[in-house]
């Protein structure tokens, strides 16, 4: 038998160090990093680093050898090499001052595309959707970045465009499930083709850009994510029967921007638009103001919204569309398979509305008027994704007070007409979203809420009571729809407290009733009782006698009391016994099991202590509050 050589098989073959990988691919480290990001290749931690590193224990990064092997024939790497040559040629041309040559070279610079890479990494659409979280968060960040030498304006512009397209899709298809406003930004969760996609959007402020952040890495990621999202969006739009890329209504883009500027049209609509383009055009120009004011609600939402429908009229809704709406609004009827045996004399029953559907049309009967102090981007998406219509104060202002300098004088703006239009529009408003400590004048018939009402309603799947969210009111806590990581539920504590309180109250009431009875029946005895308050036994006996007189069984009264008195210690004895038994059983565990068990117990204990600490803190806070109330 041949002697087996060391480090010729197993981990030593399966893993390759980074230096080796770079050498093998003949790339620079920067290019290697880029290709790793594009291809999603990541270092591994082998089970035994020593074995993988052929006996050396020096700290090293390992890659899976086959990952690197596959890279050898990667077309993108070939492009990297071409780019290297190109850069050399260009620098030479520039050095020689050969401008035309340099220009020609630059025009024909080697370009690569990552579509094949996307397809390789995500063979199916679901795979891609599953991995959208990071991509979306990154894009939304870049959309909010100030343009600088590191991040060009075009990059931010492109990112913003894609983000808006994404939001427009989510809003139109009503896929938004959760919104959580955190101190970091706003988290959204959408359910797309059955997959949960969570992304984080920063607040609309210029971002703080730390100096030690390497934007080359970030932009490499962005490059890949942009490609990924473009293709995903194309597919999603196509599946939803919408044209991609959606058109941008420049007028509206000028007003607010964001999703409201997107004219999303179904493919069929588009065809019809071509046929009757002239008529439509006229209608659109007429309705420019309306659409601007209503933002996307009219264009995006075609279902379940009679209020929006009315307003949508000038935006030229086809007859077919109206039909669609009707069918969508009605309950769905499941058609039974009409076989010979079964005569369909059973009346088809409307399906129950699932909670998801409830979310989809939670705000559908309402029109929201959004104050200019409210961040429109957050609120708009949340409202439209729940079927509501949006009218923004800032847009209306822009419409009513057009800066006359910008408009050529030839076009006389009929402000009165506009005012009339706006007034008509404002009549439909049911809710006003307001984020001010107080409001000078309120319009009767409107419900005034703070923005959190919309988020909480969406997260709970039902409309929250409005009074808690009134203007100037102290808001109830905004809880994460994903709950507390360690199993503490503030609401549960609240409920438990309420139950306790109510129980106590009930008990008190009972006692009061009892006493009343007693007073009625034997007032004299009562007096005596008071006198002999110290002698418990005598009192007890007396009560028993009274009870007997009233016809109450002796056992029932005593057992009740005993139960009350003994319940706690009895339980604790049992618990003690159980605990003791557990301790004893632990003796028979093996060492390994014992260690594992103790580790688990440590984690559980930690969670429990945190939970307890939070509970006690809450009780303390509540006590303080009550105390304060009493003092006041």
């Amino acid at each position, binding site marked *: 038998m041949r002697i087996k050589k060391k480090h010729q098989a197993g981990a030593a073959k399966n893993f390759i160090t980074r230096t080796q990988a770079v050498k093998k691919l003949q790339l620079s480290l920067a290019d290697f990093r880029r290709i790793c*990001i594009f291809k999603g290749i*990541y*270092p*591994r*931690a082998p089970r035994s680093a020593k074995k993988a590193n052929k006996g050396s224990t020096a700290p090293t990064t390992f890659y*899976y050898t086959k990952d690197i092997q596959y890279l050898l024939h990667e077309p993108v790497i070939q492009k990297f090499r071409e780019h290297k040559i190109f850069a050399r040629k260009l620098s030479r041309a520039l050095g020689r001052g050969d401008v035309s040559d340099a220009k020609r070279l630059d025009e024909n610079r080697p370009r690569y*595309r990552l579509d094949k890479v996307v397809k390789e990494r995500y*063979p*199916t659409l*679901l*795979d891609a959707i599953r*991995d959208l*979280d*990071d991509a979306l*968060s*990154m894009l939304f*960040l870049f959309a909010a970045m100030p343009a600088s030498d590191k991040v060009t304006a075009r990059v931010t512009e*492109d990112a913003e465009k894609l983000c808006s397209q994404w939001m427009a899709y989510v809003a139109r298809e009503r896929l938004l499930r959760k919104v959580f*406003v*955190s*101190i*970091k930004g706003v*988290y959204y969760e959408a359910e797309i083709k059955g997959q949960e996609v*969570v992304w*984080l959007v*920063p607040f609309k402020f210029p*971002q*703080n*850009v730390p100096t030690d*952040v390497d934007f080359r*890495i*970030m932009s490499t*990621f962005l490059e890949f994510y942009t490609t990924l999202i473009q*293709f995903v969006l*194309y*597919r999603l739009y196509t599946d939803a029967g919408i044209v*991609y*890329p959606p058109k941008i209504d420049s007028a509206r883009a000028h007003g607010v921007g964001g999703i409201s500027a997107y004219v999303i049209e179904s493919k069929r609509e588009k065809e019809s638009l071509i046929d009757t383009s002239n008529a439509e055009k006229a209608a659109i120009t007429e309705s420019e103001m309306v659409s601007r004011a209503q933002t996307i609600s009219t264009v995006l939402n075609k279902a379940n919204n009679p209020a929006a429908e009315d307003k949508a009229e000038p935006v030229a809704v086809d007859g077919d569309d109206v039909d669609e709406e009707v069918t969508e609004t009605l309950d769905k009827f499941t058609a039974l398979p009409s076989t010979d045996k079964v005569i369909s004399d059973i009346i088809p029953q409307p399906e129950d509305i699932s909670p998801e559907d409830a979310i989809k049309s939670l705000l559908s009967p309402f029109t929201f008027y959004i104050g200019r102090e409210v*961040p429109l981007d957050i609120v708009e998406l949340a409202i439209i994704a729940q079927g509501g219509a949006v009218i923004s104060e800032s847009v209306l202002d822009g419409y009513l007070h057009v800066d006359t300098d910008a408009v050529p004088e030839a076009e006389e703006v009929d402000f009165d007409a506009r005012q009339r239009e706006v007034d008509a529009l404002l009549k439909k408003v049911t809710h006003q979203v307001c*984020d001010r400590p107080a409001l000078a004048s309120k319009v009767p018939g409107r419900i005034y809420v703070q923005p*959190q009402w919309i988020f909480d309603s969406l997260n709970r799947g039902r409309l929250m009571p409005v009074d808690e969210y009134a203007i100037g009111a102290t808001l109830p*806590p905004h*809880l*994460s729809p*994903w*709950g*507390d*990581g360690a199993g503490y539920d*503030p609401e549960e504590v609240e409920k438990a407290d309420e139950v306790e309180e109510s129980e106590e109250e009930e008990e008190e009431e009972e006692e009061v009733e009892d006493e009343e009875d007693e007073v009625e029946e034997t007032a004299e005895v009562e007096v005596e009782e008071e006198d002999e308050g110290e002698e418990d036994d005598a009192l007890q006996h007396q009560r028993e006698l009274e009870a007997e007189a009233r016809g109450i069984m002796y056992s029932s009264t005593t057992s009740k009391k005993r139960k009350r008195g003994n319940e706690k210690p009895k339980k604790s004895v049992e618990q003690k016994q159980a605990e003791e*038994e557990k*301790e*004893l*059983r632990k*003796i*028979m*565990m093996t060492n390994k099991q014992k260690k594992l068990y103790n580790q688990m*117990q440590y984690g*559980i204990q930690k969670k429990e202590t945190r939970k307890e600490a*939070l509970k006690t803190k*809450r009780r303390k806070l509540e006590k303080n509050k009550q105390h304060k109330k009493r003092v006041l």
Partner: protein
Amino acid sequence: MAKRKLARAKKSAEKSQASEQSNGCRKSDRLTQTIGAFPQHIDDANHEDDDEDGYIDEEAEEVQEGDSDDQSDLEAYDDEESAGDEFDGLLDGAISDSEDEDEASDEMSEYDEGSDAGDAVPNFGEDDESQEQEDLAEVIRNSLSDDDDEDEYLSKYSATSEAESQSSLSSDLDDSRIAYYTTGADGKARPIYHDIDPHYSSDDSDIEDTNTIGNVPLSAYDEYPHIGYDINGKRIMRPAAGTALDSLLDSIEVPEGWTGLIDKESGADLNLTKEELELVKKIQLGENAGDVNPYENTIEWFSSKTEVMPLSAAPEPKRRFVPSKHEAKRIMKIVKAIRDGRIVPNKPKIRPEDELPIYDLWADDLQEQQPHVMHIPAPKMAKPTNDESYNPPEEYLPSEEEVRTWNRTDPADREKNYLPQKFSSLRTVPRYEDFVRERFERSLDLYLAPRVRKNKLSIDPDSLLPKLPSPQDLRPFPIKCSVTYRGHKGRVRAVSVDPSGLWLATGGDDATVRIWEVLTGREIWKASVGDDNEAVQSVEWSPARDSGILAASAGEKIFLCLPPIFDDETEVKGQELLAAGWGYAAQHGPAEQVNKEQPCKWTKPSTNLTSQGVDVVIMCRQTVKQIAWHRRGDYFTSVSPEGANMAVLVHQVSKHNTQSPFRKSKGIVQRAQFHPFKPILYVATQRYVRIYDLSTQSLTKALQPGARWLSSFDIHPRGDNVITGSYDKRVTWHDLDLSTKPYRTLRYHSRAVRDVRFHSRLSLFCSASDDGYINVFHGTVYDDLLRNPLLVPLKVLKGHTVVQSLGVLKVEWHPKEAWLFSAGADGTAKLWTS
């Protein structure tokens, strides 16, 4: 000259005033400003005026040159001024634009500055001399006008310089160097000079009349009439110094080439010739100082004429008239590329993103496949929790202490990278400072962090607990302490129950053996056996029911007692048994054995002891730690750990005989015990439990409990299972049929295990430890050989207090009931009942 200049200055001043009135332009303002700024240099101001429109000045001067007399010159000057006026007018027009005004004035002032700086530089042109003389006059004037008024000067010099200017101008005209005049590029007359004739006399190198004093300063000759010597050694006389009048005259009538300087070498006035002045001027301007003709005649080095005879007779190469193959090749390449569409001429510029079409990447609709085994997907970001909310419940908000600790910890060590905050409304929420950094760190994690698949156990921790029958189903077993036997002073080291189960014997550090009634806890009998207060290490009742013998060891002695608690019959029988052996060894023992040194000595006790009920005292060599009876009650073993090969002794009561079964030392012996029913002796040393067959006198087995130091062991009543306890907190169960290694090793005591015991009838065993606890177990041994023994922990008995880190020292089961006796270091013995 100076006079002329002054006149000019005056005139220009007037003119400028006039122009000021006429157009009121900025320029005149500026002029007055500059005049104001340099009141002592009115001339300078005039110069400025001239310099501002420099070309006008030049122009004027050229005109001046062309003129023949002074009058015309003056007229020309007037012309010049008028030209200047014109210019002024133009300038005004230019400046009148309000926006340009500042710029223009800026430029002007810049130019002014330049001209100010270059004021010392004489104006170039052909009329050098006059200019130069003007300058010189200026110098002189400056030197004279220390404290005189300028107005005076003005009046003074205007008179004198008038006449002088004429002569100087005429001298200008008879300049012989000028050959003729031509028309220049500007249409003006341009003087053409004679060619320089390099004849012999031009060289004056041999004329040497210079002073030859060398480095000697001229001041050395101040007292002499001469100032040095010429080359021939003759004195050079000091030139006559003129009177003050002379010098005044000199200053007025400046001779030609006068500089006002004194030649150091000759002591005379330093006069410079015109050529020399020109040279100085040229050097100052940085021009070519030598005699270089800038307008040389062209020499046709490469003539345009074709020679009749070519230089080379070689025939013209073919490549000159055949089209280039290489070029054709290159062109064809391009043509081909165009045809192939690789080169698109006049391709419109498109953004790279736009030209790439977006299509349905997943059109093939593949079925979802299992990802590769080695693929480890990146973990998703953790979902935000309640405490990240902008408006969290108040209990999440950190206390001041928590905030402080958070700030103190290193950012890398923080559990969460943010502190919960509460904002009253959405509009007050600021930006999150670390947003970019967090995303960046996430990116780094995605491509840089080594990934490893970790299986997370999602099991109920209770499922790890072994499934055992409930202790409730395995009753009876001792649960509580029912009797405590108090009386011993100091630790109770030994405890034993008599075979009837009525009497409990204990021994302790107070050197007494006491007997108690089990049920009442009453002390019935007491004997202080130990000499010198040696602790009673061991107390054991003989298993023979009818004898009532109690063996106790203290120090090196073993006492066999007959406590007076039984009926007479039993007592008599016991006395007979003990008395029978007296002198047996001497009578029956083989001679050699008698001769041989006996391991022990059986003696009669002292009267004191006899009165206490002790009948026999066996004297050993070392401290006896443990006694164990054979089941019949005739033999017993004693263990004295330091006894080397005599550590284990077997004593026979009936014959008063002692044997040492081992010839060699087996190490420090801890315990020794007889098999419950077979002639087998178990001996526990520090590490091993050795099993000796007494009938064959051989070692059958050596158990390895794996402990460092065994403290005790016990044999199951059926003989094939052994439990050991060790000082390193372990209790092991050995199944003798299985292996020499333990079947189970249990670690549950927190301190050393002191004693382990099997119940003789029930399947119970227990262990006592220095932590003060006694653990009671159920241990079923099945008849079926394939089934392993079942061990069930039943109860932890807590009652003994730990004194000086010693807890329970000895335990003993009741012979019939599930009762347990324990002796503790706290000076009590306890009975634990079910």
